[in-house]
């Protein structure tokens, strides 16, 4: 835990939102107090990535599976960067474009990390990085049978989410907007429909990709999402560590607002101060 004032403040907020009343995120067999999942790519330095991670309060961090560079020391390995006592690693299958590649990558990830958590990502379009939902579904089926805890990255498609929930995915991860675009939650209606459908399955909804700034994260949480996964929104900010703080607060605030239940919207004003006792 960070010793800064901001760190302590956000710790208090997290306590209210997640700790004291058992409002935790469940993925597979594990519970997490934080509802913010953080990617570890694209940081200007390892030190900054580590600092941003701490500031975010995230407990789950995504990593990618890549060839070891044989001509260099393994200094680019994530093991040197992340305190594994604090964080759960969520390996992804980024870069895969077929279900076979995704399955192969997931198997290798399990061998590297000795954990069953995997984010399935099968990319079907180079410009938008939109996922191939069908291939993702097929890969998910096989990996679930192999004992993985599967978190699939998909488009904001309610029917696909229902199919993924049916086969036993531990969560569904619809995009808010294309990866790295920072466009925010482009289709809040779709996200809301997915959230409502997944309540019946008891499957968490994690918005993955598209968040650009704190209000986007809060919006996703206010829509009822269980968590938000982001990378570029923090790594690509001018001051990533400060943005990590902002995201932590945004996710907590959005979650609390969702649980508190917002007031109904009205077209016209209603006075907040009493109308009786006005001076003559």
């Amino acid at each position: 835990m960070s010793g800064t004032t901001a760190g302590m403040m956000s710790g208090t907020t997290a306590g209210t939102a997640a700790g004291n009343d058992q409002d935790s995120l469940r993925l597979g067999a594990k519970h997490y107090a934080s509802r913010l999942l953080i990617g570890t790519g694209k940081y200007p330095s390892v030190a900054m990535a580590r600092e941003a991670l701490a500031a975010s309060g995230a407990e789950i961090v995504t990593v990618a599976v890549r060839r070891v560079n044989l001509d260099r020391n393994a200094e680019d390995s994530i093991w040197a960067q992340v305190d594994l006592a604090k964080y759960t690693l969520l390996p992804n299958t980024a870069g895969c474009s077929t279900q076979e590649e995704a399955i192969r990558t997931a198997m290798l990830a399990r061998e590297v990390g000795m954990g069953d958590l995997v984010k399935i990502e099968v990319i079907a379009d180079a410009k938008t990085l939109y996922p191939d939902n069908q291939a993702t579904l097929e890969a998910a089926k096989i990996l679930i049978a192999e004992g993985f805890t599967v978190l699939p990255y998909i488009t904001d498609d309610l029917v696909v989410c229902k199919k993924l929930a049916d086969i036993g995915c531990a969560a569904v991860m619809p995009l808010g907007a294309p990866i790295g675009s920072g466009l925010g939650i482009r289709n809040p209606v779709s996200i809301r429909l997915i959230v409502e459908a997944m309540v019946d399955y008891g499957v968490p909804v994690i918005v993955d990709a598209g968040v650009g700034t704190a209000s986007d994260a809060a919006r996703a949480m206010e829509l009822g999402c269980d968590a938000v996964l982001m990378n570029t929104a923090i790594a690509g900010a001018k001051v990533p560590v400060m943005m990590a703080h902002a995201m932590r607060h945004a996710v907590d605030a959005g979650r609390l607002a969702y649980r508190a239940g917002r007031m109904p919207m009205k077209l016209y004003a209603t006075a907040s101060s009493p109308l009786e006792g006005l001076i003559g």
Partner: protein
Amino acid sequence: MATCSSPLSRRDDMEAREVAMRLTVNGEAREIAGATPDAAVTVVTLVEALGLAETRVAVEVNRKIVRRANWPEAMLAEGDVVEIVHFVGGG
């Protein structure tokens, strides 16, 4: 038992060698110097020669994962295609 007097070399550095086991490791042609094509070279030999024995890596030989516990018994053969992967930063 195979001797691996020097670490793995790039194949192009080793053109003059008489005996060496040739492998493809992470897409690069490599040779284990001093190892004859039918010598007993295991995954451990390779991983140690690369200085990766203490790091968290996964090894695939000809597209099949070799679990760490099985590295000492897993024999490599001339022409094997090996992938050695680890975790890097990513979203």
